[in-house]
């Protein structure tokens, strides 16, 4: 009888010890990105889908939200800003005016909801990748006297078809990779795929999205990996991929608290530097 009591006590005690050892006592969360620049010589790049999800298939940046978006861009002390869901050249010009005319701007060439690029000091020159992806913008970023030169592709991938996402993202990644480095390269944008969370409720082919992500991730460095979701509901859809051979990520992650109105994406920032 006494042996049985001791055995019971031993079992409960052992269980308690093991459960205590197995408890993660510190709450880990990715934490917000540090807005202080990681280094003066770093390139600070941001990608942000500034559209809204409402209505039939969502909408581009609403005019009433434009001033707040401009304020966020100005506060971020960016070197390069890639935006998705810009209504057209006229809206981009209004945004550029709100920021200051020293900003360079480029926009993708067709469609009602476009990808745009803005840079306060560098020159932006359009690149022709002949990828056949309409909601994309390929550019050469040149700040030779400052942080350097880069090839950048901004993309807003298809939201509904995993096959289209695979074609768009894969062809752009492949086309960009074919440019010999330097200058080094970045691939940024709203890719509309989430591999970290269980995205099967939102994808028509989750495995194809995995293949798409890994096609890029096996050769590029995912700057925002492990930094938390960037879009509703708790999905990481916005990416900054950098060329790992020549670029080092100093810090990266979503910048919370910048959404306006019914926007469903946070901006994602990264500070990268040449190795």
């Amino acid at each position: 009888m006494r042996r049985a009591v001791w055995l019971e006590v031993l079992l409960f005690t052992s269980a308690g010890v093991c459960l205590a050892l197995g408890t993660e006592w510190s709450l880990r969360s990715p934490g917000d990105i540090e807005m202080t620049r990681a280094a003066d010589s770093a390139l600070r790049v941001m990608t942000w889908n500034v559209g809204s999800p409402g209505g039939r298939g969502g909408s581009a940046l609403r005019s009433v939200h434009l001033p707040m978006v401009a304020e966020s861009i100005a506060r971020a002390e960016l070197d390069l800003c890639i935006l998705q869901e810009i209504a057209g050249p006229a809206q981009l010009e209004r945004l550029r005016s709100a920021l200051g005319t020293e900003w360079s701007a480029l926009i993708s060439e067709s469609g009602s909801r476009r990808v745009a690029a803005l840079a306060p000091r560098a020159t932006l020159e359009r690149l022709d990748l002949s990828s056949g992806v309409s909601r994309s913008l390929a550019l050469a970023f040149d700040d030779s006297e400052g942080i350097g030169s880069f090839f950048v592709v901004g993309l807003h991938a298809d939201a509904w078809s995993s096959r289209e996402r695979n074609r768009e993202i894969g062809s752009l990644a492949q086309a960009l990779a074919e440019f010999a480095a330097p200058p080094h390269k970045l691939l940024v944008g709203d890719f509309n795929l989430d591999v970290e969370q269980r995205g099967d409720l939102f994808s028509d082919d989750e495995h194809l999205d995995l293949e798409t992500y890994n096609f890029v991730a096996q050769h590029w460095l995912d700057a925002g990996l492990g930094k938390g979701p960037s879009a509703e509901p708790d999905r990481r859809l916005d990416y900054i991929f950098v060329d790992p051979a020549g670029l080092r990520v100093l810090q990266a992650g979503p910048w919370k608290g910048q959404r306006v109105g019914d926007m469903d994406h946070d901006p994602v920032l990264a500070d990268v530097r040449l190795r």
Partner: protein
Amino acid sequence: MLGLECLRLWRSRRPLVAVFAVCFFIVLMLIGFYTYAQSRTGGEAEFRFTFENRSYFNGLTFTLYAFYFGAILILPIFAAIEGGVQLAGDTASGVMKLFLTRPLSRTRIFMTKVVLGAALCALLAGFLLGSSLLVGLLAIGWGDLDLYPGVLQMTATHQHLPAEVALRRFLIVWPAASLALWVPYSMSLWVSTWAKSPVNAVGSAVSMYLVMYVVAEIHFFESLRPWLFTSYSAAWRALFQEDVQWAVFGRDTARLAGFGLLFLALAFRRFRRRQEIA
């Protein structure tokens, strides 16, 4: 008494049923893996941008897939069945009263069943692993193990393990997976101490396991995961990294062991206090 229990287990045919289920499962996995690999890498494949290529589809990748699904979904069912039958079955058939009149102490009876269960879990895990490796080697062939983000939720970044390293990791996976199997066995042993009928015990234990597994997989219940042992059943996945995070693996394994010991403690508490009523 351990020898007698082993004999009774063997004569019950339950281990054979588990072995047959594992073999059937591996055959199906092989057919699926082979046809999938052919469709992805054959000439008639529709082009797409992917990481899946001929070198990816090798015997070690097959082993990982087969072992992952077998160890998470197939074997825990059999472990839960065995735990449910052990005490409730002996109680219903009257064998428990026979043991107690011999007399054998309740502690000895209980610990014999615990040891037997642990051995069975280790054998089942080893059989699944060994047969998967053998089938992978003979039917598909060797190669290095590549793991990609999102696939089986095993890694956040691409991992490349040479074949020899991967095989050593599989060896460590065996005891880790055996522990993961032993926890549903302990839980069903606890359920078995309350049930008078083995059917009720097995049904309750298996359904509890499945409910916990499903709940742990749904992202809405993220806050519940630390309280469900099924969240840690695949802790051995951490071993398939180029640089293993041993502290994380040790923590999750400790938690799993803690759940198993807790179920065992609750089962023993109930078993040594209950009355065997005619």
